[in-house]
């Protein structure tokens, strides 16, 4: 401020000089005149001090004024603590939900992949919608054909998902693994963080088995132990050397823990894997050749695929409706999540809108109550700008508090939402709380603050000319009343839509949870005791039979059985099933053979799981490899293939090429249908083989007479005694297996119900607020009514009716909106069939909520003191 300062010194010197001259002219002594002028001027330092405030630059002044506004706002809000807390809380809910969802959306949908030139990467998918399989993956034979025909894809990478028994890192366990050829990592464009990845040198029969660990496995199971490089571990029957750790990235599929080369998997060297066209277990990735586009690659591969299907019609039945999809890799990773996340974002947006409209309502009501205060301020010279600024400061304080709480709230929510989103995109697994929370929160708060500051109308400017103190109290203009009601109706309508959506999910969940499964869920413990593929055969049968005997000897164990499939948990591992037919079954011309589920069970399996045997007998020890081939079928098989009810003792056989030459097997028993693939049971064509004739188990079922979990330790001990390297994992009762499978559905319903509950809560507060305001504005009217002989009950009824009218209009608007959304989403969501139920439920809930919300204002209206009310004006 130096120039100001110097100019001011000049000005003061001038002032004193003029003063002295005047005094001298009046005849004072020059020296006395000087002293008098100085004295008159007063304390120069104090003057300069007050000048400093004037010389402050404009922004400092504004900032100070704003700080002052904020202080005033805080003081004024202290008198309305209840309102301030409600508003801040509602904004916190709205802002928190949005910040959390947005943060997840941003990271899942918009964060770039770590893969080099990820936009050149494509995913090739084969699907068989006719068999209900969106992704059948490929067989090696198919990959060879596609590879040979392609010029637009410069390089292919393949990945087969396979479980290995891993011995060498702590307890023996089954790891989720992938087997890749040497081109895989190069095509995917990934780098190691430690050691090296698998390359072309690791291909071929002469190569040594090697394994690469994924970053997730290395950091969670091995605590980032750098000494793992070079370590030899047992993978199934082979010994492989750990050569590297992959950078944090999306190994495909997401839960992969270890990736090995082809030589590490004897299965991959077998004739079935190499030759069999329908032995599909491999996923295919490609990198576009320079200059090629995804469209060109798609056209080329689709043509090659069509030619392949013509050449090998036996591998592509017409009913399977086999298709080929070529899409950018990033789409493959995020596509399923996109819709869900955008829906979530919309739900969060609706909550925010409801919260804002409600806050607007409360603030509007408060402003009307403050009309007298505002007109006094206007009369005292506060301009419209100043009043606006005051309101803005208040709403900024409120929204700031809301944003602060909201961001706090958002942090745990991010975890919840990303767990939810992880169902749809593996990218959501590593979503972290990031700064976007802060700026989204701040942004939303600013939007809300500005919007809220402009909601109330200011006293008109002519108020300045007539500073009549507004002693009349509340006077509600029709416009304000309508605006309040419109906000309340909008809240009800939006909450209604959310309630409906939540209702649909809840109804679906309830349906699933209460579906009858046909199993004895509580007392059956399922344990994974997998043998390596190579252990197939007599030795496997002996192993499981001895395990069965020894576990059955444990106290508290009723019976033990072996199977190859844990209901629900193993859903999908056997693919869409295999084709079969039966003796005397005449199919309609052109019809395909039915697909059946193949299950392998030991004698006693049905008794252990509580599945009733309807006819015939269970398997027994005589159903051996060298005896007659027998099967037990589910009721649906018997009904469908033997309409005359004579299934017993007739034969059926698999016709799928996978089984080679058809071999008839006699049906010795019929059991009740159980659907072990779907949590909502449907009819299931299931064919059970005896373990001794198809020696492949892997799952132990223990029927306990006491607490099943008490048996986990002794069972593990028995099996480790038999083989110290044998994994014994994932022990759980069938009830818990089912609960785990349902967890995502529960989470789904939970998240949306959460949104709906918040919306409902806000809407209830909103309706109550509007009515309370309307009641207090009409104190006089109620007083007159009561004085004229209205009963208090009539007054109460009037207020309740007013609440019900708001709710009804809101519900009507909401069902129009919800119905429209339902029809739009309808075709893709089977759950929409539950719409009617949830519409009704949501309407009942909202109506009840509206009535409850009206009770308190109604009670107040009925307590109006007649004399007081009449005197109030």
């Amino acid at each position: 401020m130096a120039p100001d300062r110097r100019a001011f010194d000049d000005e003061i010197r001038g002032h004193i000089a003029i003063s002295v001259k005047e005094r001298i002219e009046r005849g004072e002594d020059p020296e006395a005149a000087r002293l008098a002028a100085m004295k008159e001027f007063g304390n120069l330092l104090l003057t300069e001090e007050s000048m400093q405030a004037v010389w402050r630059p404009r922004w400092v002044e504004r900032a100070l004024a704003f700080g002052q506004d904020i202080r005033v706002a805080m003081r004024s809000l202290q008198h309305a603590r209840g309102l301030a807390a409600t508003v801040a809380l509602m904004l916190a809910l709205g802002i928190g939900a949005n910040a959390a969802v947005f943060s997840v959306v941003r990271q899942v949908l918009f964060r770039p992949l770590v893969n080099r030139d990820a936009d050149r990467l494509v995913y090739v998918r084969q699907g068989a919608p006719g068999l209900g399989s969106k992704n059948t993956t490929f067989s090696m034979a198919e990959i060879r054909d596609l590879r040979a025909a392609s010029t637009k894809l410069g390089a292919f990478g393949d990945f087969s998902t396979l479980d290995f028994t891993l011995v060498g890192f702590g307890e023996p366990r089954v790891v989720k693994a992938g087997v890749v050829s040497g081109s895989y990592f190069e095509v995917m464009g990934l780098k190691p963080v430690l050691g090296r990845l698998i390359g072309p040198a690791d291909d071929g029969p002469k190569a040594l088995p090697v394994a690469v660990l994924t970053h997730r496995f290395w950091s969670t199971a091995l605590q980032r132990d750098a000494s793992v490089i070079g370590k030899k571990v047992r993978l199934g029957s082979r010994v492989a050397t750990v050569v590297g750790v992959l950078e944090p990235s999306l190994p495909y599929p997401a839960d992969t823990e270890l990736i090995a080369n082809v030589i590490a998997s004897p299965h991959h060297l077998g004739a079935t894997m190499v030759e069999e066209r329908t032995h599909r277990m491999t996923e295919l990735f490609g990198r576009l050749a320079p200059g090629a586009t995804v469209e060109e690659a798609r056209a080329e591969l689709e043509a090659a695929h069509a030619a392949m299907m013509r050449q090998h019609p036996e591998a592509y039945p017409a009913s399977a409706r086999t298709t080929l999809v070529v899409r950018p890799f990033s789409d493959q990773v995020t596509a399923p999540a996109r819709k869900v996340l955008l829906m979530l974002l919309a739900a969060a947006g609706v909550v925010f809108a409801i919260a804002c409209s409600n806050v607007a309502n409360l603030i509007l009501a408060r402003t009307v109550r403050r009309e007298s205060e505002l007109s006094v301020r206007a009369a005292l010279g506060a301009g419209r700008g100043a009043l606006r600024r005051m309101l803005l400061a208040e709403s900024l304080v409120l929204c700031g508090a809301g944003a602060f709480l909201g961001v706090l709230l958002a942090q745990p929510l991010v975890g919840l939402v990303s767990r939810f989103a992880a169902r749809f995109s593996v990218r959501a697994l590593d979503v972290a709380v990031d700064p976007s929370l802060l700026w989204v929160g701040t942004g939303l708060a600013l939007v809300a603050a500005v919007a809220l500051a402009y909601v109330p109308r200011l006293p008109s400017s002519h108020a300045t000319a007539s500073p009549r103190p507004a002693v009349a109290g509340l006077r509600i203009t029709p416009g304000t009343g309508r605006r309040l009601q419109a906000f309340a109706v909008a809240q009800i309508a939006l909450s209604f839509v959310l309630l409906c959506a939540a209702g649909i999910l809840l109804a679906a969940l309830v349906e699933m949870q209460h579906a009858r499964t046909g199993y004895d869920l509580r007392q059956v413990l399922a344990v994974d005791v997998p043998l390596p593929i190579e252990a197939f055969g007599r030795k496997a049968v002996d192993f499981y039979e001895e395990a069965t005997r020894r576990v059955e000897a444990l106290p508290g164990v009723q019976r033990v059985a072996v199977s190859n499939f844990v209901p629900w948990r193993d859903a999908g591992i056997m693919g869409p099933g295999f084709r079969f037919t039966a003796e005397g079954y005449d199919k309609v011309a052109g019809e395909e053979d039915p697909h059946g589920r193949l299950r392998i069970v030991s004698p006693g399996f049905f008794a252990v799981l509580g599945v009733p045997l309807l006819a015939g007998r269970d398997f027994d020890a005589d159903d051996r490899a060298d005896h007659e081939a027998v099967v037990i079928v589910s009721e649906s098989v018997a009904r469908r293939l033997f309409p005359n009810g004579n299934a017993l003792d007739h034969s059926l056989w698999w016709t799928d090429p996978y089984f080679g030459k058809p071999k008839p097997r006699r049906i010795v028993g019929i059991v009740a249908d159980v659907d072990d693939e779907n949590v909502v049971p449907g009819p299931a064509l299931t064919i059970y083989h005896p373990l001794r004739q198809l020696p492949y188990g892997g799952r132990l079922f223990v029927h306990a007479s006491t607490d099943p979990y008490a048996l986990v330790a002794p069972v593990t001990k028995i099996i480790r005694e038999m083989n110290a390297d044998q994994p014994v994992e994932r022990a759980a009762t069938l009830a818990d297996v089912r609960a785990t499978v349902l967890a995502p559905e529960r989470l789904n319903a939970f998240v949306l119900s959460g949104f709906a509950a918040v919306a409902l809560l806000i809407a209830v507060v909103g309706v109550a607020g509007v009515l309370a305001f309307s009641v207090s504005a009409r104190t006089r009217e109620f007083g007159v009514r009561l004085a004229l002989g209205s009963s208090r009950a009539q007054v109460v009824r009037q207020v309740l009716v007013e609440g019900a009218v708001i709710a009804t209009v809101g519900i009507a608007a909401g069902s129009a909106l919800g119905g429209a959304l339902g029809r739009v989403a309808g075709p893709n969501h089977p759950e929409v069939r539950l719409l009617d139920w949830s519409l009704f439920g949501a309407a009942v809930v909202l109506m009840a909520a509206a009535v409850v919300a009206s009770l308190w204002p109604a009670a107040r209206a009925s307590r109006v003191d007649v004399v007081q009310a009449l005197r109030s004006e």
Partner: protein
Amino acid sequence: MAEIPEDRRLELLQGTLDMLILRTLQWGPQHGHGIGQAIRTQSDDLLRVETGSLYPALHRLEKRGWLKAEWGVSEANQKAKFYRLTPAGKAQLAREQDRWSLLVEAIGRVMKVAPAGEE
């Protein structure tokens, strides 16, 4: 402060100094000392504006655009800063005058009402 006010001298009501300054400048440009003197003589020596309040007020009004300041030479041939009313300042003066007369009237009415029971 510098001077102890004599018995009959009045403290300025808060917010009225700006109005007085604007009013004084209605007769033409004037420097700080002149403004102080004018208020003093026009109020028959009842109001004395201290320079410690006068100059901050002048600079504030200038900043708001109601006054414009120029260096000039006084009658006494002394270099001084002269303040002049801008059109915005004139409008502001009119507003303040209105407000002032209303306030006087309102306060006057209140003070004139005889307390009940004294009639």
